[in-house]
């Protein structure tokens, strides 16, 4: 079986890779493209560790077949920082100790960015519902929620100044 050639845009750069028809986009990103930020936690769309944004939609890359990425625009956690400058969410996660083992963190960052892009000043309840598709077995979520609140405040202040 010949492999499928996929051309897309990843984190603003043109990208191409070869994949198998039955390979998930998560596996292709990790094994073919070398972007190992997205993680496989459950492989069934429950944990959100593989969250990415494809054509403006937040989704679990473990539930997407890699050939579907043809012609799409993809954002992963690797595209969040600008050079050495971390995204405010990344900075707030670090400063607020919103991670321990770190496996869920890329998914939380991508999902939280998607949430703030859509709703720049979410309430705590909106954050908790917005991140319900991401599981963390270390932090108990409170530090994550507070980090997202802090980042939201920072981003809003920056945009207003």
């Amino acid at each position: 079986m010949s492999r499928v050639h996929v051309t897309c845009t990843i984190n603003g750069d043109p990208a191409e890779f070869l994949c198998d028809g039955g390979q998930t986009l998560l596996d292709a990103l990790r094994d073919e493209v070398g972007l190992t930020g997205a993680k496989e936690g459950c492989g069934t769309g429950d944990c959100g560790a593989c969250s990415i944004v494809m054509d403006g939609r937040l989704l679990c890359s473990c539930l997407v077949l890699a050939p579907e990425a043809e012609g799409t625009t993809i954002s992963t956690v690797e595209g969040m920082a600008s050079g050495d400058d971390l995204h405010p969410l990344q900075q707030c996660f670090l400063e607020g100790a919103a991670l321990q083992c770190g496996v869920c963190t890329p998914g939380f960052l991508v999902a939280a960015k998607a949430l703030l892009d859509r709703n720049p000043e979410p309430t705590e309840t909106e954050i908790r519902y917005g991140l319900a598709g991401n599981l963390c077995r270390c932090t108990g979520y409170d530090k994550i929620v507070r980090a997202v609140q802090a980042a939201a405040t920072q981003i809003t202040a920056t945009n207003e100044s």
Partner: protein
Amino acid sequence: MGTSGSKPLAAGPGVELTAGGVSAMGYDLMLSVMRYASPTTVAEAVDLLGSEADARVYAGATDLIPQIRAGRPEPTVMVDLKRIERLCAISANGSTYTVGAATPTADICADPGLVAAFPGLVEASGLIGSDQIQSRSSWGGNLANASPAADTPPSLIVNEARAVIAGPGGERTVAAAEVATGPGQTSLAPGEILVEFELDQPPARTADAYLRLIPRTEMDIAVVGAAARVTLDADGNVTAAAIALGAVAPTVVRVPEAEAALIGNQPSGDALAAVEAAAAAATTPIDDKRGTVAYRRQVAGVLARRAVTIAAERARERGGQS
């Protein structure tokens, strides 16, 4: 766990996995022999599905991929329906709404026309999974996957949604209620796909509601789901009612006795008590980790009564506007 080609994958000291083996988590890894096709027309999709016995429809895949990973037989061809414009479009034409069968529920929840006309159906749509899943889940998938606990079928049914089905013999339109026939079973013939749903604009003083009980606040499967739609006259008496329950039988259950108890009455007092009793009596639930038979039966009655109450409030607020 990666599954790239036949490349052996290290799974820890002394353990090697190849594609098709069982991962450390106990899932079958996906094989790499699967082909992916992305037709852009309904006709092309039907041809592809007819060309190989093991071709499968691939839309949001939020149920399909976990099922394959859990050991279901693997399709040889995945036919992605999401590049077919008709399958992902929402339109309003006169008094009829048309919603593509693969339209993401996130789009449905953001459509002002659908939100206004079918608040309960939109609520049911928004309850499916996380934001990540909302980007992929659809009415067509929810119905064709035929889980007894699916959230949108009860609401599609009380709103008398019609399903447009395409197959080798052309297109046919059936009531959405006729699609699922049992757990994982549908009336779709081999090679047939759900193309779109049609919904008529509700009449004046008509509204729907959907309630679901789950053990937590998000990301779970219904213990019971209840959809109701009522039409009131100018005095607030019920002139038409539809009540459908999910997760309490192999398929969605309509409750004609509860509907009849409402007709000609105010949606309150004895009429609501009759709704609750009839809904509970109409169920044939299973015992499982989410709830016992007795619990499901009682909750079905309570949710049916509350869904009718909410639908009636909305119908009153809507007044004479259709």
